[in-house]
């Protein structure tokens, strides 16, 4: 624990509009390592903090492909290769009968990959995070909006960054201890 180090500076806002404007202004001022916190998803906020690469759709696609192909080949291998049984003269690889399970497995794996992928990319579960050290941050799940500039940002400098954030018309500024 390095109590003397700061993790970042956190500014508090009253409305989503305010937060998006502030996030845009901060990014345009040259800060790269910033994040915003809100009690509900806000359209355009991810772009405002410079977040581009969302891998969740790709992970979901991979999951769906694994499920679908795996589901079909599981049935093919079991019914046509490992233990073929003649049922009513149908061919061992009776693909129309295999569609339902192939479909269900596609959905199942797509859904599981989507959710686990989202959690993993978000780094959750994460019971401890420095932002929780700020007492006012409990309002971030109710009706307040927060913007943080991380201390790891090359442009971060305790005094000037604080002055910059104050200039955005913030309600309060808190230092986030590391």
């Amino acid at each position, binding site marked *: 624990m390095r109590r003397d180090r700061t993790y970042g500076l956190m500014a508090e806002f009253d409305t989503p509009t305010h937060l998006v*404007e502030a996030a845009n202004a901060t990014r345009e001022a040259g800060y790269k390592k910033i994040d915003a916190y809100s009690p509900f998803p806000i359209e355009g906020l991810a772009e405002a903090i410079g977040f581009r690469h969302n891998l*969740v759709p790709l992970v979901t696609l991979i999951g769906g492909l694994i499920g679908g192909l795996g589901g079909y080949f599981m049935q093919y291998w079991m019914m046509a290769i490992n233990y073929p049984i003649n049922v009513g003269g149908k061919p061992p690889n009776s693909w129309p009968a295999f569609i339902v399970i192939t479909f269900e497995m596609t*959905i199942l794996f*797509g*859904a599981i990959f989507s959710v686990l992928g*989202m959690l993993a990319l978000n780094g959750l579960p994460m019971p401890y995070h420095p932002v929780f050290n700020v007492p006012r941050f409990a309002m*971030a*799940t109710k009706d307040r909006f927060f913007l943080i500039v991380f201390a790891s940002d090359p442009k971060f400098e305790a005094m000037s960054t604080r002055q910059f954030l104050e200039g955005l018309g913030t309600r309060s500024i808190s230092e986030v201890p590391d």
Partner: protein
Amino acid sequence: MDDRIEPTEAGQAPVIEPGYTFATVTDKISSIVLTRPTSNGWFLGFGVAFLIVMMLLYAIGYLFLKGVGIWGITIPIAWGFAIVNFVWWIGIGHAGTLISAILLLLRQSWRNSINRFAEAMTLFAVACAGMFPLLHMGRPWLFYWLFPYPNTMQYWPQFRSPLVWDVFAVSTYFTVSLIFWFIGLIPDLATLRDRSENRAAKIMYGMLAMGWRGSARHWHRYETAYLLLAGLATPLVLSVHTVVSFDFAIAIVPGWHTTIFPPYFVAGAIYSGFAMVLMLAIPIRKIYGLEDFITERHLDNSAKVMLATGLIVAYGYGIEAFMGWYSGNRYDLFTLWNRLHGPYHFWYHALLTCNIFIPQLLWIRKMRTQPLLLFLISTVVLTGMWLERFIIVVVSLHRDFLTSSWGMYYPTRWDWAVFIGTIGFFLACMFLFVRILPMISIFEMRTLLPEAEVKAE
């Protein structure tokens, strides 16, 4: 969400009553769980439901001891109540997924205040449904034989059988419904974590919220995953009852072997599901004072969905009867005659009354907005849909091709004990749910408020 609080058309109630802010919406919903004292009514209701669960456990225990012979199932009606109830319960579940997934994709923002408890309803209904095939197996402790796993008997499930499809469809449906519901809960669990005073509650909600902090990056991925899940759940929900209907339609029994089954089963599922949503929503909004969030608009819209799906079901009955006649097949013709005039004719007429005639009252606006009347109609629809499954399962089986194999079906007290027991189980789960989890999605309600809009400069 585009249409936050739409300019209401003449006489149309809003999705959420005006005057709320982020803070008051949060407080109103979270206080039901966190600060509202547990009322005597809750204890009474939960107590009754709990006693019924005990009866269920007793009935299941006795079933394990004696075998399925304690039920009324015999040849030719080997399916009986177990499958009637299975289809009924799983159909009820469908409305939850329809509300949470399909209405989300269609941007019906009114769904935001009813999706959470509708999803919970789905989960509990599917759990009730899942019990029946397991109990009906005779040796339920060998249920894992249904899954393809390498085993010393050196056999695989028969993938050409609709019953195996059903195993995959229902288990996928339960899993996807569970994760969809849980993902929706995460931001609200974080709200409860930050708002609860009680240390134990804080730890419990905190662990479940997994450290959610509402970062913009997280929200972005979260929304993508939520939309993708909705996109996956939409074909899933349509497929589940289709596969359930294949259990019947793939067989050659007259009255089952028909192509109308999949769409008419899906419509029937949504029909009964919305009836259950209304039966839960109407008392909940009254008892917990949530009329501002679950408004007349929700009742009206749900009733309209019920009316529309009810008409599809009516069309299904019509086509069944028409095809019975038009096919010229003597067995199909007999099935039709037997429904109308056979030993179960009273129940077929009751079914037509409950599912087709009485719900036509919903054309009248007052019927759709009067909670008590709507509650009664929903009860009628749920009864009708249960009768529908009874007619499909029992009446088709009891008189098939050979008169020598005809028979009758008489449910025993154990059949009833298990059926009523699952209703108790469902209610007990709902009671626990409204007590410990937010029954309305708090974060989705916040997005409906006018102040949630980001104004462009």
